[in-house]
């Protein structure tokens, strides 16, 4: 059998890879790709806690389903923003979007 720790370490590694992508990428679309990796890591955690905890309580899977919905909402609005910004400013590089910076 696979111990719970393997899943948790896999999820932690996937999360920090996503975090790295969010922190270092310049392209706004690539930053959203990193956010997707982080959300997937969280989902692995939720489903593995469901499996290794009380199976008859479905809370882990329910939370994961809701994370799916939130991820879909996040990516649709995020990419709409990116496309709108690209149309107006002709760039998707996050450093150059400094209109609201002090």
């Amino acid at each position, binding site marked *: 059998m696979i111990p719970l*720790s393997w899943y948790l370490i896999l999820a932690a590694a*996937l999360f*920090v*890879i996503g975090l790295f992508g969010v922190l270092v990428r310049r392209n706004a679309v690539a930053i959203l790709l990193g956010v997707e990796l982080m959300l997937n890591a969280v989902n692995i955690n939720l*489903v593995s806690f469901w499996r290794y905890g009380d199976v008859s309580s*479905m809370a882990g899977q329910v939370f994961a389903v809701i994370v799916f919905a939130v991820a879909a909402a996040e990516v649709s609005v995020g990419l709409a923003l990116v496309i709108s910004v690209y149309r107006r400013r002709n760039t*998707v590089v996050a450093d150059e979007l400094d209109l609201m910076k002090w």
Partner: protein
Amino acid sequence: MTGEQIIFLIVALFTLGSALMVVTTRNLIHAALWLVATLFGVAVIYALLNAGFMAVVQVVVYIGAIAILFIFAVMLTRKDLRDNTPQTNKNWWAGALVAVLTFAGLVFTLQGWSGFSKTAAAIPSGFDAISQLGEQLTSPAAYVLPFEVASVLLLAALVGAVYVAFNKK
């Protein structure tokens, strides 16, 4: 080492390797395709966790919708993808440091937890996870309220995305 563990290790290495490609590759179309590979790996992880419904939803929603949306977004903003400009900002080492420290902190915190290395109990015979999930998502005693809030959120995101991306000219 059992066969299940070997499958897990192969899938985990594949998932993490393609995740690394997502954050490091220069071409964004390739990054989006590597994201598809990562999402497939996560779907296999769900299947290993006896969550077949989650694996199917992962393939249908994430790969079928979200990854395709990413590829469309990359293609719509293609002009900016000059391969001679750096794809990472100049403080990338600080980002790598934060990521490594976060991983170390997470593993350190998990190691002190008593349930860290517990193994899964067998699923009781006759237990149907999918019908349980459906009942709990629609039962007022369980999670019908978050379920409805999620649908309102999706509607709001749909309207918001159309409004934001709409070309007013």
